């Protein structure tokens, strides 16, 4: 059976390569110093989607992302790897969204896409590490969800079988479509960019990018519809403004503290029970563990 799949992806600052300018003096992330990358677990999610596309003829994979104009990069990146296209949800109305407002906006955009069989997203993004957006989108759309997926084993007769990676083992579950699946980082890595697809889609652009590129470009663009990346603003989705952006975000950041590890001293213990016991108690008291 052919499937309609939407992958939810996010462009994030590369927090894995944190240098010394990663944080500003006020404790906020210095986005300028960190390259913007495709959230790693979303790439795992994309791979699961592309495998279904390989297996089930006629399946389409589109990527939906909410973010600033440059987030179109990850849609192109997805197309280089095999996605059919994507949607960029962008606008200042979405700024300041916490996970609740984000999942609301994304669910509105998904509704606009009509019937979707599977929504696949990464477990969590490396900037916030909340793992909330996927499950919240499922709730808002009234869909069942499978989290921590390591592999989508099978899709047949309207049912999906998923292997989940849990703390103490794996669990295989089966559920009815439509379904939302969040994918764990332990899933198969995403396939590399494909050379021909990269050359085919390298000029794929959103409407605002086309405008920026000028007239010569627009000419090339107009006779190649596959180069179009859909760009949606707040008016393109059915929504209630009070659930969007700042006003839709109950999470307020009270204070940010820049914690710089300074301790350098070491302590030597003898392997006596009493000493180990004392250290355990100390670590639990100061919340290092437990």
């Amino acid at each position, binding site marked *: 059976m052919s499937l309609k799949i939407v992958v939810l992806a996010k462009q994030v600052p590369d927090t894995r390569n944190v240098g010394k300018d990663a944080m500003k003096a006020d404790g906020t992330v210095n986005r300028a110093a960190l390259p913007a990358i495709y959230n790693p677990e979303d790439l795992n999610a994309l791979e699961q989607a592309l495998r279904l596309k390989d297996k089930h003829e006629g399946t389409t994979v589109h990527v939906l992302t909410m973010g600033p104009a440059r987030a179109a990069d990850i849609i192109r990146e997805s197309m280089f790897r095999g996605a059919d296209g994507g949607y960029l949800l962008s606008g200042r109305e979405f700024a300041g969204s916490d996970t609740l407002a984000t999942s609301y906006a994304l669910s509105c955009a998904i509704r606009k896409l009509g019937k979707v069989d599977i929504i696949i997203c990464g477990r969590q993004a490396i900037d916030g590490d909340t793992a909330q957006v996927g499950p919240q989108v499922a709730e808002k759309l009234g869909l069942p969800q499978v989290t921590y997926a390591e592999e989508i084993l099978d899709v047949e007769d309207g049912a999906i079988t998923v292997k989940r990676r849990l703390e103490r083992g794996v669990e295989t579950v089966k559920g009815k479509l439509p379904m939302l699946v969040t994918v764990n980082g332990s899933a198969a890595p995403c396939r*590399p*960019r494909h050379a021909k697809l990269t050359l085919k889609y*390298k000029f794929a652009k959103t409407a605002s990018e086309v405008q920026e590129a000028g007239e010569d470009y627009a000419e*090339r663009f107009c006779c190649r519809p*596959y180069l179009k990346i859909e760009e949606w603003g707040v008016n393109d989705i059915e929504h209630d403004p009070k659930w969007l952006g700042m006003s839709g975000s109950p999470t307020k950041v009270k204070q940010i503290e820049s914690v710089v590890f300074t301790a350098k001293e070491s302590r030597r213990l003898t392997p006596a029970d009493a000493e180990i016991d004392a250290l355990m108690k100390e670590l639990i008291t100061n919340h290092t563990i437990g």
Partner: protein
Amino acid sequence: MNFYKENPALKFQLSHPLMHKIVDLKEQGYADKDKYDYAPQDFEDAIDSYDRILEIIGEICGEIIAPNAEDVDHEGPQVINNRVKYARGTQENHDALTKAGLYGMALPRQYGGLNVSMVPYVMAAELVSRADAGFANIWGLQDCAETIAEFADEDIKAEFLPRVCKGETCSMDLTEPDAGSDLQAVQLKATYNEADGMWYLNGVKRFITNGDAQIKLVLARSEAGTNDGRGLSYFVCDNKHDDRIKVRRIENKLGIKGSPTCELVFTNAPAKLVGTRRMGLIKYVMSLMNGARLGVGAQSVGLSAAAYEEALAYAKDRKQFGKAIIEFPAVYEMVSMIKAKLDASRALLYECTRFVDVYKAYEMLEQSRKLTPEEKAEYKEYQKLADAFTPLLKMFASEFANQNAYDCIQVHGGSGFMKDYACERLYRDARILTIYEGTSQLQTVAAIRHVTTGGYLKQIRAYEAMDINPEFTALKERLVKMTALYEQAVNAVHEAKDQEYLDFVARRLVEMAGHIIMGYLLIIDATRDDMFRKSAFIYLNYGEAEVKKHAEFIATFNRDNIDLYK
């Protein structure tokens, strides 16, 4: 890590002035743009596409192939039931490159290729080699597809080329137990069967890289009763992995352990003739060899690049006597010499590749239309240059790779002798480079012609006439003096009219030409980009001393002494 993006010296080559001509010839009016959605619109678009393709390869090299190299070296391939099983990492490398659509890069689009010119193709080979020189063989054997594209009939092209693009691997089966450097002695028998119009192969091949490949190009004796090269034809063989082609064993080697080197037994293996009978060795293998030598040039430069990165990182990191060892003259001289030899061999690699690019493009063009007299003249000119530069490149790049791998261990000191660092693998992998696809000694044999006929001198004069940054005027004056020494030595040997003497000093003469040529290439590159400035000076200091050494040897050598060496 991305091996392409992090190294501006590679992208620099895409901006060479000759690229415009090369790409225009290759793309023939950019006519493919209306047929294929991935074909370039114009020159700038094509270069951008090259850049993007190389970025994908650079990422796969940095993220997958290089991290796998150590395990592949330890694990190696195995033979199970007469079939080769790659090491786990080798298979993973191959799958990644296949999924990225990077096999058959240089093939025409009609067969599923990307139709890139030789420069980015060779650059890809350099990148893969830096990541794992052994794996570069499996990747590089797509050269075989080039030979099919060039010489085979249309039905053979249509049958095999799209399969290469889908990731089926190739092998070129030339060597036999009694036919190594002397391929005229090949005995594997090809018999024509009138009934089904197929050829059948019987015999043994030895030292066949990736011998279990699906697509095999085989040199075989089609003319019963002959004993020389003119009795040999070239065949393409679809390996069905049945009893007709068996892998008897694989060799246990010093280096490039991930690359399976096979002994093969052919028993009535069906095959198709490539091109014309009797032209196997004389025409097709020679062409394939030139491609393979260019490939070893790229492999050598890639290995030198790896040696440089390892040596530099260690020398900066390792502290002795209270400072990083790179601050000691004995160490920084070694590291900068590795860099200078790397830059010089890379300059030679891409200069040679551009020559190959132009003449191959004309060769392809000639298949579709008659060339104008001007085009024909240019075709011949570039072919001559490619013929002259290929053995020079093969010899210098492979010898430098060995010297660099040696010095890389030396920079590491005792640690370099242990299995803990990559440098010991580089050292073992480098060793084959001066041997296969023609030893350095055979490259001298191929190159000496261009010494005696003045081919190198003519090109040196062309470089001399080029504009350079005035900063390098003093360097150029030294190169002019080196050229005079070279001419004197060549004339002295020539006047002796003694073939044995010429053969005896051939290597020295070829090396003199090489040092001068690389010296010029570096100041020309440094004129376009300052990043080559240091290497231009450092290489010239080295090359000048080498040229003087050889000049001195030849000037004072007593020919009667040759007998003492026997």
